[in-house]
């Protein structure tokens, strides 16, 4: 009986150990994102970005007074409910910083929960670093002092996309297809609004919403797009939802260009091949072939460390975010979340792609964006500047235009309440 008890106690101890075995000078960020389920691949690759960045920061002196940065992964299965459960575990483990990106519905739930917790637990506040959830609401109606967004929100990206379409008079019929949740709906709404304003001659021939991560066969959607006679498709789809959509478009012989948010996202290019060339376009803060590319050394380190096909250095914003976080701890002379949050507000920073600012009014990072199109890499007969392929494929992005930070900024309705 007693040996059984000892064994159980030992087992329990080893379970708790990873959460307690940290010294006072380690700052932990809980990475809450899908590590299982339909979007596990996206969450896994995101985690790699965090881990490598933490290594780099620690190798270069760490945070304030040499504190080390540690990333602790939590699996939210892209579900708001599960994310809240994980947040409880984060709080129990005494972790004071969280980061999440996949799913604006998850982000909205987390913002509410963090606000509530911080109000009830002064002195134990949690800061939420958002690296990819782009629903504009998070920096407008629902803005919070404890939330910082490092990705351009979907309205800013749509502004960039529609500006790009402005001179292109060949585009007369636009089809919208998006995931049926807060983010996808806001993409569709903004596309309608901005197109009506900037290109009233453009007709919107379709507006489809489909459940997030539920559709296996996109062939019927592609047949519908073909039927509508669309000459451009706008989609905010990500993860398997964009891979399967474009794969079905390729199989169905749909030639209209795809204006995407996440066309360069994980797993998309290997599935597409030649069919994507000149057709799949994206708006992002980074791709490997931007010139000059100051992140190349880091990207090479990433490829060396995570050589698996289907993984690539994609989120420059994770790098910028953690660089700014490290900087903020030094500026605040503290690793306390509240002090760091005040230091982050309004912070100017020289990122790898140029000057960025964490806008004080709404905690939205304003950064340069790139509009780009898929081509074959130079070695396979593509344009000379397409030196690197995405995820080790023969296809990479070529910049169409760089949009300076100030030209992506949009007004906010946020009325920030500060503690």
């Amino acid at each position, binding site marked *: 009986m007693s040996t059984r008890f000892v064994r159980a106690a030992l087992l329990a101890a080893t379970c708790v150990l990873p959460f307690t075995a940290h010294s006072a000078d380690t700052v932990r960020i809980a990475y809450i994102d899908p*590590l*299982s*389920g*339909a*979007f*596990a*691949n996206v*969450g*896994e*690759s995101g985690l790699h970005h965090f881990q490598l960045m933490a290594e780099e920061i620690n190798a270069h002196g760490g945070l304030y007074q040499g504190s080390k940065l540690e990333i602790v992964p939590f699996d939210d299965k892209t579900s708001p409910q599960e994310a809240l459960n994980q947040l409880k575990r984060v709080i129990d483990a005494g972790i004071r910083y969280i980061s999440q990106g996949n799913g604006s519905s998850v982000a909205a739930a987390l913002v509410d929960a963090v606000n509530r917790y911080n109000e009830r637990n002064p002195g134990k506040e949690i800061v939420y670093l958002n690296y990819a959830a782009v629903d504009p609401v998070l920096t407008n109606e629902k803005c919070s002092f404890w939330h910082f967004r490092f990705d351009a929100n979907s309205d800013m990206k749509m502004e960039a996309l529609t500006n790009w379409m402005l001179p292109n008079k060949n585009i007369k019929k636009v089809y919208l297809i998006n995931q*049926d949740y807060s983010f996808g709906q806001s993409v569709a709404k903004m596309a309608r609004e901005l197109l009506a304003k900037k290109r009233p001659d453009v007709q919107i021939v379709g507006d*489809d*919403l*489909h*459940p997030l*991560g*539920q*559709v*296996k*066969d996109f*062939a*019927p*959607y*592609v*047949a*519908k797009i*073909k*039927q509508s006679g669309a000459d451009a498709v706008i989609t905010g789809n990500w993860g*398997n939802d964009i*891979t*399967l959509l474009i*794969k079905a478009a390729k*199989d*169905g*012989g*749909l030639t209209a260009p795809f204006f995407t948010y996440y066309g360069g996202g*994980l*797993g998309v290019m*290997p*599935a597409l091949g030649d069919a994507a060339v000149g057709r799949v376009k994206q708006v992002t803060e980074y791709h490997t072939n931007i010139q000059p590319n100051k992140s190349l050394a880091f990207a090479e380190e990433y490829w060396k460390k995570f050589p*698996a*096909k*289907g*993984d690539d250095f994609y989120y420059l914003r994770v790098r910028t975010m953690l660089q700014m976080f490290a900087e903020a701890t030094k500026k605040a002379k503290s690793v306390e979340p509240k002090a760091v949050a005040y230091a982050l507000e309004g912070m100017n920073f020289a990122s790898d792609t140029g000057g960025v600012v964490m806008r004080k009014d709404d905690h939205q990072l304003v950064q340069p964006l790139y509009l780009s199109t898929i081509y074959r890499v130079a070695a396979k007969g593509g344009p000379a500047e397409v030196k690197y392929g995405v995820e080790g494929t023969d296809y990479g992005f070529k910049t169409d235009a760089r949009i300076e930070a100030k030209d992506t900024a949009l007004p906010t309705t946020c009325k920030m309440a500060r503690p």
Partner: protein
Amino acid sequence: MDFVLVQLLNGISYGLLLFMLASGLTLVFSLMGVLNFAHASFYMLGAYFAYQASVLVGFWPALVIAPLAAAGLGMLVERFGLRRAHPHGHVAELLFTFGLAYLVEEAVHLIWGRSAVNYKIPPELDGPLFSIMGTQFPVYRGFMALIAVAMLVSIWLVLTRTRIGLVITAALTHPGTVEALGHNVPRVFMLVFGGGVGLAALAGVVGGNAFVTDPGMAAALGPIIFVIVVTGGMGSLAGAFYASLIIGCLVTFSVALDWRLADLFARFGLAVTPQTPLATLWNIKLSQAAPTLPYLLMVLMLILRPRGLMGTREG
């Protein structure tokens, strides 16, 4: 009209893939009374085995190797797991397969990682088969349909025209008698379970590269095959066949229709405004609800005709 034809082809080919998945599940259920929750996991294993084999020896050998390997694994599972759970009743079997599904998913994570693997369609099957008014119908979808039909025919031949088929069908209703005649009934069950698993794996081999081979694929298709088996009638192969085609076409066609209940009300002079009670519900387009329609169908079927399309009433 051409659009209807394209959608019909899409619906049938998708339905046939669903049938490949559901047939193994319904076979195992009808012959052994085991509801295999891990069935979709073997679909996933089939895709991963085929990916691994296609990297080493190419797609065509993989088409044979992967289902056989999965079937072998299935037989081991039956022999050393399920058979021991069997005397403890249906709940024990159910829980066993339920746990197995989690184990398989974790094993896939550990071996192949959490990201999708690059399992490609062989070049000779890549490209359009024919096109209707500019919309192409890919060769690979035709190939998938062909495999499914070949599978249906061979299952039927094995069950009705071969000696082993006769033993299997006899063991279903009179296991004691069959055993008394000198047949090894537990071994028959092992073969049946392995066969069912092999069918799921075959679906994985052809479905894995048509869609995406990733650790989420089992969870994504798991629920829909239960819908098919319930709608078609538990244990009925023909029922599963019709249910697959109906569900494939139902989803495909409803994607194409932007009908809303609000439009229907408008015909009767009832305008839906944002103030109308449940306005959001009446404004949902049929296309938006398409992927959830099979579940609605299952619920309706369970209310109106609990034994399913072609099922026989239990007891």
